[in-house]
């Protein structure tokens, strides 16, 4: 079944809300507007305003409300219009959602999904074009998912809703209209499981979310040059499927990590650390990272393009680790 990423998210939430009355959707414009990116199309009609709650512009307030509701046994899905606005809810996410289980010695839990788009779209400027996944990955108590395909988005969102922990689920504006094959019928994908999206023996490329699509395109280009890249999508960023990445690197001996976020203290640095610690002897070349540039996102198109990884930068990085140039 070929459907869009947006439709996959819609199906996942719809199925979970039908399955479990404790699940409800809350956020700005999720109801009558049907979601700022139309992810919750048809939800008010099916589930009513008791379970599909339009909120005022009050991220800390409604995220905190959802956390409190989760503590009392509900399973909220919070939609952030974008993760940029989630910064306003960081106190709730970091100080409450992530810590309540531990601080209470395991008495309380916070089964909660916080989802919405991260990363840049086109020319939205510095405040609307950020990849903040590393911030969330840094915090013990959170799980972080960033799926790239409709199939993964659906299966992982269903797992996230059924998880007993706070899960940060990062989508991307530029992925919503992309299409892909989704399995028929009911399925879930386990949190914490990477997938090899393309087989190859010469080099491993690790990429997630929007950058996975870029990596796959670059891999096709490189195949014409005689380089067979293996592309690994972690899908879940925390807990990270270290074994899948290490296994691939043990086979190829080379690693390129692609991420859209800022370079300094980015997620790729953590992935590189893990690989150096666990597969150093297998590496034939230093790991190369392709990342966003450490600047606030500029508005103008040429500079914006220069700030985000592109196909040529991925190809160049791969050539560098394969050929040393």
């Amino acid at each position: 079944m070929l459907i869009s990423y947006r439709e996959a998210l819609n199906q996942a939430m719809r199925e979970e809300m039908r399955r479990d009355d404790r699940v409800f959707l809350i956020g700005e414009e999720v109801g009558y507007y049907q979601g700022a990116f139309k992810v919750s199309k048809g939800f008010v009609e099916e589930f009513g305003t008791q379970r599909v709650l339009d909120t005022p512009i009050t991220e800390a307030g409604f995220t905190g409300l959802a956390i409190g509701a989760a503590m009392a046994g509900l399973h909220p899905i919070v939609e952030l219009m974008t993760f940029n606005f989630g910064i306003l809810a960081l106190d709730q996410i970091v100080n409450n959602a992530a810590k309540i289980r531990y601080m209470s010695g395991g008495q309380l839990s916070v089964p909660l999904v916080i989802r919405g788009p991260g990363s840049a779209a086109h020319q939205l400027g510095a405040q609307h074009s950020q990849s903040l996944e590393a911030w969330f990955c840094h915090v013990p108590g959170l799980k972080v998912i960033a799926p790239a395909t409709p199939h993964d988005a659906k299966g992982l969102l269903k797992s996230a809703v059924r998880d007993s922990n706070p899960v940060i689920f990062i989508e991307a504006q530029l992925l919503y209209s992309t299409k892909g094959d989704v399995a028929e019928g009911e399925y879930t994908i386990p949190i914490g499981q990477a997938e090899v999206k393309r087989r190859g023996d010469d080099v491993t490329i690790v990429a997630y979310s929007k950058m996975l699509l870029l990596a796959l395109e670059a891999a096709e280009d490189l195949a014409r040059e005689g380089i067979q890249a293996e592309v690994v999508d972690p899908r879940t960023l925390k807990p990270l499927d270290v074994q899948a990445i290490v296994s691939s690197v043990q086979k190829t001996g080379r690693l390129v990590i692609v991420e859209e976020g800022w370079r300094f203290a980015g997620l790729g640095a953590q992935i590189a650390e893990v690989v150096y610690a666990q597969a150093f002897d297998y590496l034939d070349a230093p790991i190369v990272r392709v990342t966003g540039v450490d600047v606030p996102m500029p508005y103008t198109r040429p500079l914006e393009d220069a700030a985000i990884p592109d196909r040529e930068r991925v190809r160049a990085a791969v050539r560098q680790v394969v050929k040393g140039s």
Partner: protein
Amino acid sequence: MDRDDLLSLYRQMLLIRRFEEKSAEMYALAKIGGFLHLYIGEEAIAVGAIAAIRANDYVITAYRDHGHCLAKGSEPGRVMAELFGKATGLCKGKGGSMHLVDARRNFMGGYAIVGGHLPLATGLAFAVKYQKRDQVVLCFFGEGAVPTGQAHEAFNLAALWKLPVIFICENNRYGMGTPVQRAVALYSNVAETARAYGIEAETVDGMDVLAVRTLMKTVVTKVRSAPHPSFVEALTYRFMGHSMADPSHGHYRSKEEVEEERTRDPLLLLRQTIMNRGLGSEPDFKRLEREVGEIVAAAVKFADESPFPAPTALEEDVYAE
């Protein structure tokens, strides 16, 4: 109000008072570490308010939380063990003084980011309403939380969605060392802040446990019968410093002021009421002192003799299965 009822209220306040005096001693002996914020002087609010609710109603509060936890019925030994950081503590030693939780009693915790637990309280109330139950939520906080954005977001959502939460502002006149006059725009009538959101608000003498309970019974009945938020400002005074790191008066308030306020000690006031009404006399209070003293001594003994958590506990309870 009969004799047993009044003596029971007195006993609850006395337990909190003696428990905390003992915690201060234990802090001085380094049995308790970190921050320790005492509720001494404010006991009438937690005891009076919690006396007006049912056992399955929710209570959530800030970091000055020992009093609320004990008033909700938690075992003093497990509370003291938590302060000692022991494995037998309410939270296995992982929460500490500021983060007591007793989920079995729907005591949903103490939170230490000022203003941050008010949205949680609205969420507990949301869950109650969503599931068509008839519980209420008591959310305690100091007047220092009133200017925070999160408090206002919580007031707005609670009013907008008619959530059964009662916001109880414990106005002890100082947010750490800053007097309310220098922190809250509507300092002379903090309750007015809530009225701006269409939330019914009352002010009560927070030193008078009977006044607190009487008002709370009325408010709780209304909120339970038709879910909506309410706000109660309880005027009180903290007899000790902001925390154990702070002397009882310090530079920000005078010794005379503290002494003056101590004449309105909530325990003293209730004791006078009981005596004036002929419902109790010196031997009763002596007996209560003895009983409470034994409970506190047993709590300390339990905490002291309990083991610290095993090293394996470090990475447990981060995630639920």
